[in-house]
């Protein structure tokens, strides 16, 4: 549990960080909170020769409201998300989900940028960002570009991030006033990744679901949008038969790995239950 040798760099600007990444090449990795990367290094599953610490870059921090969007700096910690009044007010599901990540120690250091850039299917933020329709801003040697969260994840630890690129901020559209939301996460204990989790954001009109999107965590090698499941509930009042249909549609796209959390069959089964429960809870608080 001792990492191999590495050099440490602490640039003060995004441009310097990008330059370091480009100059040092494949062996360099950005370091954010270190709560995914450092454990991998301690197991020597990751052996970067250079760590480019982004913590010295002030521009990467903070949450701000820009019209109908929240703009969140990549280096904003989970704790800062929890402390933000803006998040609590306009995007309560982000607050709810952040609170289900790990424990206070991890949340004090772990960042939203690291969480979404990591590419681990166990991370909670990616599916939530897809559910909310977020966009990631990436900067590299060739300039800046935007990638939708829904297009970002390609496989376990494979993302659209190109070598030399840094994720600088995330733009998240604020859901409609009166929306319902829920993040249902089944885990074995505090500090555990999800056995299965479901994010739901919906609006109701006249007792029926008007819009709905559903994201799934840790039931596939990437986070998932459960589009068929979401479509199945639109226009319904979430009666038992519809909920069953939605859960089945969501389970149909899941392909989790068997692990100590349970066999594949169990993880898919509870994945469906998380969808059902999130839908019910979201509908109950929608106005």
């Amino acid at each position, binding site marked *: *549990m*001792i990492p*191999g*040798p590495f050099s440490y760099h602490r640039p003060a600007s995004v441009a310097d960080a990008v330059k370091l990444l480009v100059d040092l090449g494949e062996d360099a990795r950005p370091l954010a909170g270190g709560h995914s990367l450092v454990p991998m290094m301690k197991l*020597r599953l990751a052996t970067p020769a250079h760590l480019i610490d982004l913590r010295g870059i002030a521009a990467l921090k903070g949450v701000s409201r820009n019209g109908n969007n929240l703009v969140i700096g990549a280096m904003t910690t989970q704790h800062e998300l929890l402390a933000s009044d803006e998040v609590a007010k306009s995007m309560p599901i982000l607050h709810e989900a952040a609170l289900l990540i790990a*424990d206070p120690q991890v949340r004090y250091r772990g960042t939203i940028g690291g969480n979404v850039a990591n590419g681990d299917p166990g991370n909670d933020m990616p599916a939530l960002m897809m559910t909310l329709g977020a966009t990631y801003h990436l900067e590299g040697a060739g300039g800046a570009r935007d990638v939708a969260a829904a297009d970002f994840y390609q496989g376990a630890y494979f993302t659209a991030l190109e070598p030399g690129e840094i994720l600088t901020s995330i733009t998240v559209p604020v859901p409609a006033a009166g929306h319902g939301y829920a993040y249902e996460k*089944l885990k*074995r*204990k*505090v*500090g*555990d*990744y999800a*056995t299965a989790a479901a994010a739901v954001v919906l609006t109701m009109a006249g007792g029926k679901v008007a819009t709905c999107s559903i994201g799934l965590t840790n039931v596939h090698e990437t986070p998932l949008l459960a589009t068929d499941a979401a479509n199945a509930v639109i226009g319904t009042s979430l009666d038992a038969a519809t909920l069953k249909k939605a859960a089945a549609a969501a389970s149909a796209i899941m392909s989790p790995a068997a*692990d*100590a*959390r*349970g*066999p594949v069959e*169990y993880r898919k*089964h*509870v994945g469906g*239950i998380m969808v059902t429960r999130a839908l019910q809870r979201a509908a109950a608080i929608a106005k």
Partner: protein
Amino acid sequence: MNDLTPTREQRTAALEGMGCKRKRVEDIRFTQGRGNYVDDVKLPGMLHGDFVRSPHPHARVKRIDDSAALKVPGVLAVITAETLKTVNLAWMPTLAGDVQMVLADGKVLFQNQEVAFVVATDRYAADDGINAVIVEYEPLPPLVDPFKAMNADAPVLREDLVGKMSGAHGPRKHDNHIFEWTVGDKDLTDAAFRKAEVTIKEMISYHRTHPSPLETCQCVCSFDKIKGELTIYGTFQAPHVIRTVVSLIAKLPEHKIHVIAPDIGGGFGNKVGAYPGYICAAVASIVTGKPVKWVEDRIENLTATSFARDYHMTTEVAATKEGKVTGLRVHVLADHGAFDACADPSKWPAGFFNIVTGSYDFPTAHLAVDGVYTNKAPGGVAYRCSFRVTEAAYCIERAMDILAQKLNMDPAELRLKNFIKAEQFPYHSALGWEYDSGDYHTAMRKMMETTGYAALRKEQAERRAAFARGETRDIMGLGISFFTEIVGAGPSKNCDILGIAMFDSCEIRMHPTGAGIARVGSKSQGQGHETTWAQIIATEIGIPADNIMVEEGNTDTAPYGLGTYGSRSTPVAGAAIAMAARKIKAKAQMIAAYKLEVHEDDLEFDIDGFRVRGLPEKFMSMKDICWAAYNSVPPGMEPGLEAVSYYDPPNMTYPFGAYLCVMDIDVDTGVYKVRRFYALDDCGTRINPMIIEGQVHGGLTEAFAIAMGQEIRYDEVGNVVTGSFMDFFMPTAVETPHWETDFTVTPSPHHPIGAKGVGESPNVGGVPAFSNAVNDAFSFLGSTHIQMPHDFWRNWKAAKDLGAVA
């Protein structure tokens, strides 16, 4: 007398003696980060050692190439079995009469086995060195399932034992067989089963788990070439035993070995045995002439140093239609991994598993235990329990519930019908123990009344009906456990470790001003000995506990003791402390008589001094007697006030308790909620009620973890898949249920202060309570026994197998 004269109550309270909820004195340093643990020991020039470990569960080691490792900056030496052979230390004896490889000798027998020891100037360099050692393996077929160990075609694991058809505990039936141990009257028991009106039979497994103390196993070894002396700082629950073992295997004179166990961050049995790290660090220090530190990381601790349990218990009970038990028959298949490294008293290959008749009056019983080798880490230790007592308690407490279910009888009623009665003590059990004291009916009834047991059963019936009507998806279970432990090993007539009787010891030295030091052969790992040992002395000799310093763990200063495990400290060392204190008191009485100019027999002890009978104003305090001991002792008496006691207990002690767990389980997800947990413990005389409560909380939390998910699991090809706290269930404060504690007091008749020990009771009694709650919840759906651990997915699977989820 005036208003300022303290009352008797005030004088008693000032002592903070037995029965006082005295605050733990050691917590002042622990809570301020001022403890002194092994990893805090830093000696000049100290080197660091770390292990190359096997990725294979079973393989031949063809070649070890350390040339690249020796080029890594900071790496000084790479020690292999070949190096150790030059000092005859490639293998070491285990406490169970087996031998164990220190470093892989031609073969590896479990994943993460120690293969080479890299010594470097710091921990980072050592780890870099490990990654540069090249080991060539030839994989062999792994043996994972203990039930296949004795198949004709099973791979032979221990080539060193081939042809030796007799081991430390008698004949071996197969190359992978370690021992067979039988107890009880087979013919009588078989006859009871033939005549039985009702019988049950179930294979009850207690899965492999691990004590996982917060602080892992570690040591610093420092060999002084000039003096020829070896100093070892280590996480040792039994420092004196370690000194003797080192002397015997390293052929160093015992007085030239100094073993020091400083503060220890939890042991739970993990720190009783000897591990390759200790030997390698010692050899490395001898080779390099520098102190060498070895500190296990979490993965190493979970996967290489001793596991616990892994008992597969085929259990049969015979009974009458009315529910009176008439016979018990148990066969255990014990998985010991690659080496039998059980930490049991030497003559007890399955520990005290023959306590398996539990709290019940079985007229006859028979037990057979077969130990086998598999390609898993060696062990197993007693994880917060006396030797194999938790396995035994789990076995009988599950069996009683299964019998109750078969008889369609309430499990509480079945227990009340079969308990050993108060008037039967001392009670001789069918499997050979003499229970010292108990009042089971009183404890059980108190539990049932306090928890409202009858009302809970009624609620359960209503819930089951509601479940059947489809109104709820939650099922409710009530888990009863009524355990009897056997602790305090032990009497020299049946307990020794490597030939050393399992006594314990105390030396008390009182100073002139009325303060003193007590050195004890036990070794606290967090149990609070510095607090409680002083309380015993305070009450015995009338000196405030605050004036008694307790010291343990340094073999140069502490009297020889067998250490702390198996809840033996209070039963054995606690008795030695009381006996040493009584010697002090006896001498003090002679001094007081001389000073007060009366005959000794005219004095009576009164809280904190001696008083002349009939002349209450003639009184000499213990404090003043201490002073007198150093200047005016009676003619012919030696000055000073010291005493030593070595205590060989006449019997074990038998704590017991009545626990109830109330649990709700959501069948759709398998998620459970412990609604209520009540624990009544009877540990005899209570020295410090607050410490008892703390011990019960800790033990219940471990029991909860074990029953509900904590396991060391291997996949079918022998990879250990639970090597970190991500997958090895370690509950946090959030998951841990609320504990309600209660007690009755039935003192031990043979112990000087009547105390029995409590540290392990909650683990022993807790596990069956949780498991019985889960099993009770599912029983109405048609199950008789569901194996532990009862984590979420397994609960869901049980529900699914029983048809309760689609």
